[in-house]
């Protein structure tokens, strides 16, 4: 950090807007505003330059301003008294806060679920079913000579992905950068990524599975019915050409987005893609990675996985983790009217869940933590205003290729961090449950619950 002409410069800051988590930002700070964000893409610039401290109360209880202590007390009471609470969100906060959120879910015997369940949750299920042939973005930069984007639009959603990692940079084994690479885009419409690709295959909507399945067969040398053209909108000759390119490249990588994981077929689409990448390793080096959206959604998967053994949709009601997407994922258990309380951290389910799920969320008491006012915070029983991670708060986040990166905050905030609020909440919950602050590693949870209510 250095001072210059009334400005403060923060070097090597990290942008947490998207899953690229670019850590080469040079931020110029004047007063309480960031006035310049060098190296940032259009999304990163909007993220940094539009940041301002809002004058909102630190906490609201049923819409009325309250102190942090009062809000923590009310929130703890709600969660401790709940029989089927859910802890949800977590993708836009630090790993340190995520870790405490999982601990809270464990103490209160609830479900813990992240926004992964509504974006790349199917990918998580597919990883479990097939396995993931994985590599870091650094390997892609230095080695990949065939890059396939499937059902994603990095030019608009991850603008620096192509320039920093996947298509443009010169690497150890691709010294001429873009000239040494073949870039393929498979999508249902001609997006802004299409001009950056050498080959664009426009397939029919919802026909990804058939296309990937045909590619799998072609790679194995199995004859494919020419009807594939009618099914996918792309000729068998083009699929055959792509299969040959995949087999003959030196280092191939397939990046897939929600065009694969959230369209008809969901996790089975991703299973098909993962199986294709696995099969290709009989011929060459081939890898596959999801294009993760939110800044630290990959961290949420990692933290929940190392704490419970599963990445999302985990139920801890019986004191041990159980994983069942569809049963313990928030959108589903809200839509079925099952949860009786919720703790929502850094996400906005009232803006994007289905109608039955939103209606049920409005019926139950819930706590929301968010730096901004959102539909979810507006209707929350208890709402906390928190500092923004990456801008105000330090911590750890994971890049989309599971590489942890440290944050360098640029500005202080008058609001507490998610981690601080959650830590206070966890402490109060433990007090209510009669669990001391000197933690026993594995206390018999249910007996504590009984003691608290006897």
């Amino acid at each position: 950090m250095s001072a210059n002409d009334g400005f403060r410069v923060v070097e090597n800051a990290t942008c947490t807007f998207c899953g690229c988590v670019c850590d080469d930002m040079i931020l110029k700070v004047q007063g309480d505003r960031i006035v310049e964000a060098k190296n940032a893409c259009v999304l990163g610039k909007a993220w940094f330059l539009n940041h301002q401290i809002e004058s909102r109360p630190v906490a609201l209880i049923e819409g009325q301003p309250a102190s942090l202590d009062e809000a923590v007390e009310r929130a703890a009471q709600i969660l401790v008294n709940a029989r089927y609470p859910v802890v949800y969100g977590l993708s836009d906060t630090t790993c340190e806060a995520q870790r405490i959120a999982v601990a809270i879910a464990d103490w209160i015997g609830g479900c813990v679920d992240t926004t992964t369940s509504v974006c790349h949750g199917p990918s998580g299920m597919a990883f479990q079913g097939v396995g993931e042939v994985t590599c870091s973005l650094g390997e892609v930069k230095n080695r990949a000579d065939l890059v396939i984007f499937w059902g994603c639009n990095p030019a608009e959603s991850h603008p620096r992905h192509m320039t920093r990692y996947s298509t443009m940079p010169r690497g150890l084994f691709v010294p001429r950068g873009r000239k040494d690479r073949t870039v393929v885009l498979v999508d249902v419409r001609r997006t802004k990524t299409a001009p950056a690709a050498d080959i664009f295959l426009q397939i029919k909507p919802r026909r990804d599975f058939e296309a990937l399945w045909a590619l799998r067969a072609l790679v194995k040398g199995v004859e494919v019915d020419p009807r594939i053209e009618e099914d996918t909108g792309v000729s068998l000759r083009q699929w055959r050409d792509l299969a040959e390119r995949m087999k003959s490249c030196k280092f191939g990588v397939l990046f897939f987005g929600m065009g694969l994981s959230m369209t008809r077929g969901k996790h089975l689409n991703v299973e098909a893609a993962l199986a294709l990448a696995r099969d290709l390793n009989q011929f060459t080096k081939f890898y596959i990675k999801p294009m993760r959206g939110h800044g630290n959604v990959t961290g949420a998967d990692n933290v929940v996985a190392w704490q419970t053994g599963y990445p999302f949709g985990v139920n801890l009601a019986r004191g041990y983790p159980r994983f069942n997407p569809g049963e313990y994922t928030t959108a589903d258990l809200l839509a079925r009217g099952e949860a009786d309380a919720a703790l929502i951290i850094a996400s906005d389910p009232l803006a994007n869940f289905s109608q039955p799920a939103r209606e049920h969320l409005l019926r139950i008491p819930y706590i929301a933590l968010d730096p901004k006012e959102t539909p979810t915070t507006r209707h929350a029983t208890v709402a906390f205003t928190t500092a923004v991670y990456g801008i105000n708060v330090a911590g750890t986040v994971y890049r989309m290729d599971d590489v942890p990166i440290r944050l360098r905050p640029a500005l202080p905030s008058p609001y507490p961090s998610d981690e601080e609020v959650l830590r206070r909440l966890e402490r109060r919950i433990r007090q209510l449950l009669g669990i001391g602050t000197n933690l026993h590693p594995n206390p018999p949870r249910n007996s504590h619950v009984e003691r608290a209510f006897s």
Partner: protein
Amino acid sequence: MLRLSMRREPVVPLEAECVRPDVLCPLSVAQIETLTVWHGNREEKLGEFFAVQGSGDSGEVHVEGVLSKVKWLGAQMSGGRLVIHGSAGMHVGAQMRGGSIEVYGDVGDWLGAEMRGGKIHVHGNAGHLVGSAYRGSRAGMRGGVILVEGSAGFEVGHGLRRGLIVIGGDVGDFCGVNVIAGTICVFGRVGWRVGAAMKRGSVVLVHSESGFQPLPTYRKDSLVELVWLRLLARQLCQWGFVPRALSSMTQGTPTEQETGEPILSASWGEQRYWRYCGDFAELGKGEILVRAS
């Protein structure tokens, strides 16, 4: 006969895996009422939710009430007969090994998931993943019979390894996905991608207009008449299975009440079927039998 009548509706999901004949029948009413169930994250007594009457001498348990939030009924049971009056929640008969379950109503997802033996007969509809594998498991149902007279959701028989699943109505996408072996029979319309990644096993589509679209990795093989289909059809008649799709197909013909005969004749087993073999992206020893129109 033991009768469990719901006296208090659960507010949040109630996990009652103790409701299985082989556990309940040897116990007295007082002992049954003290069995543990999980109401959300709290352990409570079965007697707080169900009034228990009768004795278990006959090995038969009847459960009645609003059961849609009650999970794991009959899970892991190994004998006896469980009759559910009303619509049950998820995981009915999951991992069961023997005995029979009859449901007069609908059931939730994961009906008979990973079951190994016994018979389940649902007179209503079923949710997703009938007889399937739980996430992370290699194989789903490994033996036994599941009969659903109504419709079922996605991924019927996901990872099926052995056994028979019969769906009397429509099914969603990916019916028979990842099947290792076993038989699935569907009387209604099917969704997309039937038999994807099937290694061995048979999927029979009885409806002459099932909406079947073969995957590009399947090949149309031959027109066949199969003896085992006749045997299957006869067996379903004996079990009193009334597929909803077939009864709607036979509208206008004399009803069961009028003729005194079961509405389901075994004639569908005597028809000719197109045999599609695949899935050649996998082992390719599976078959989909599609009724020739």
